[in-house]
């Protein structure tokens, strides 16, 4: 059974159609790439899947369960995490606190979160992840004081805190220097090796081609192609979408 099934997903903004009947599926353990020119609907796709925006039509199924239109916190608790193209953090909270927010809502009830004060497990996991990403020494710094690259890593770390089954990365390499890109790619590969499923939106073709085994191409809200990196590179529809006629 596919981990994530998106069926004819549609999203309108007033008269603008951002997504038109997009269907795709994600297998467990995959490293799927989503590419397409600006405005093709990639981020909207993520937003509809993760509950940030309600879709206008279609269905989203995660592990067999219909999660269409559910709120973002419900989606998160079912095991889907994401990062953002424009970095979204909690600026006046420390790096560690940012990580802890991402951990605390996955378990327990509203009441237990008031009563339970103990956080050793979550803190240990947060430290572990921060070490993995190489920013452990920054744990007490305010998120707003971090450099762009460090913020990207924090964003990534937050997505990992809840041990999600599916991780959606929205342009993780945007604005990042080449060393950091290699760094991030390494992390993603390693985690994928450990069993985490990834869907990655990217503009950086080198990254997508080398990282992903399967790629889906969107253009103007529609899915126009799918295949291995080699197949996509040769596909005339794809070239047309990017460079026009």
């Amino acid at each position: 059974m596919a981990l994530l099934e998106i069926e004819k997903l549609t999203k309108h903004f007033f008269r603008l159609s951002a997504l038109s009947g997009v269907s795709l599926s994600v297998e467990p353990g995959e490293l799927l790439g989503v590419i397409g020119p600006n405005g093709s609907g990639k981020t909207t796709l993520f937003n509809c899947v993760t509950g940030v925006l309600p879709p206008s039509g279609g269905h989203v199924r995660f592990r067999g369960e219909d999660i269409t239109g559910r709120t973002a916190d419900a989606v998160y608790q079912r095991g889907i995490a994401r990062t953002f193209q424009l970095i979204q953090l909690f600026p006046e909270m420390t790096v560690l606190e940012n990580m802890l927010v991402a951990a605390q809502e996955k378990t327990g009830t509203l009441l237990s979160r008031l009563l339970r004060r103990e956080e050793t497990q979550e803190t240990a996991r947060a430290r572990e992840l921060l070490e993995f990403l190489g920013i452990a020494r920054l744990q007490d710094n305010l998120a707003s004081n971090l450099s762009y690259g460090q913020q990207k890593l924090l964003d990534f770390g937050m997505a990992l805190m809840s041990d999600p089954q599916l991780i959606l990365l929205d342009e993780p390499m945007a604005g990042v220097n080449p060393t950091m890109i290699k760094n991030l790619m390494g992390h993603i590969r390693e985690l994928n090796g450990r069993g985490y499923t990834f869907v990655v939106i990217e503009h950086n073709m080198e990254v997508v081609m080398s990282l992903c085994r399967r790629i889906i191409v969107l253009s103007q809200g529609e899915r126009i192609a799918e295949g291995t990196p080699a197949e996509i590179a040769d596909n005339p529809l794809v070239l047309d979408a990017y460079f026009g006629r």
Partner: protein
Amino acid sequence: MARARWPLLAALALCLLLPLVLDQYKLYVLSLTLVYVILAIGLNLTLGYAGQISLCHAAFMALGSYAVAILGQHRVPFEVGLVLGVALAFTWGLVLGFPALKVKHHYLAMVTLGFNIIVFLVLRNWESLTGGSFGISNVARPVWGPVSFKSDRAFYFYILGWTAVVVASAYWILHSRWGRAFRAIRENEMRAEVVGVSLRNYKLMAFAIGAAYAGTGGALFAPLLGYIDPGAYTLDRSIQFLMMVVLGGLGRFEGPFIGALVVTILPEVLRGSEGLYLIIYALAVIIMMLFMPKGLVGLWDLAWRFSRSRSSPSTSSASLR
């Protein structure tokens, strides 16, 4: 926030000793300040920590005041009236939390504003229950069997007790995962939701708990003054609390203390010039917003940092708020 612990204990000690040296009027002012601290803590939770605009804090206060006053007329024990008032305030806080889920800042301001005025009108018109514009006088102070809190000094300690309860509970809540969730919502609502923070649950709680504290303050306010009327619970009053928390420092634990102190003591200092007090106050507010938009707590931070750099080398840069 953790570093607020010692100053709080020091303040408590001070509050225990002050009644020995203060005259009746000054004791009254101190009692009123404590009540305002409770109210400011409530609004600080809703607005400062969770970022939800609430312009109806006075309405929740009124629920507490009138519950105690009306039930007191029927010889119901004070604490029962207080609990009922707080429960009422909590419930209405929940009710008002729902629009908070659907509408944005400016609309929320209007919904809460509207609620404040509705409550005021109801208080003014439901004469059989509330005494209408004349209000209720001789609001009874609590009595525990042989022990009566009727005297000003005794009632001061009663208020102090409740203040300690409120402060301790607020401290406890804001240091829990709830506190962190509130701050996350304030910092970046969308991101918070995407990492599993239920906006619905936490916003409702932010409103309800803030309202409950306001109800508590209101319940203590009524017997302190001895007499209440609808005029004490208008929009102007809600704005007064808004001023307190912003002047003190939004979203900072020390904020409500500073804000309540300044707002209550300032008119006393300016007592000679009745009308002028408001003008100076207004100017102060504007100037503060221009130069210290994060509140007077900034001065407190400076003082703290100064004393720390003197005693030991600085350790970490951030602190829990």
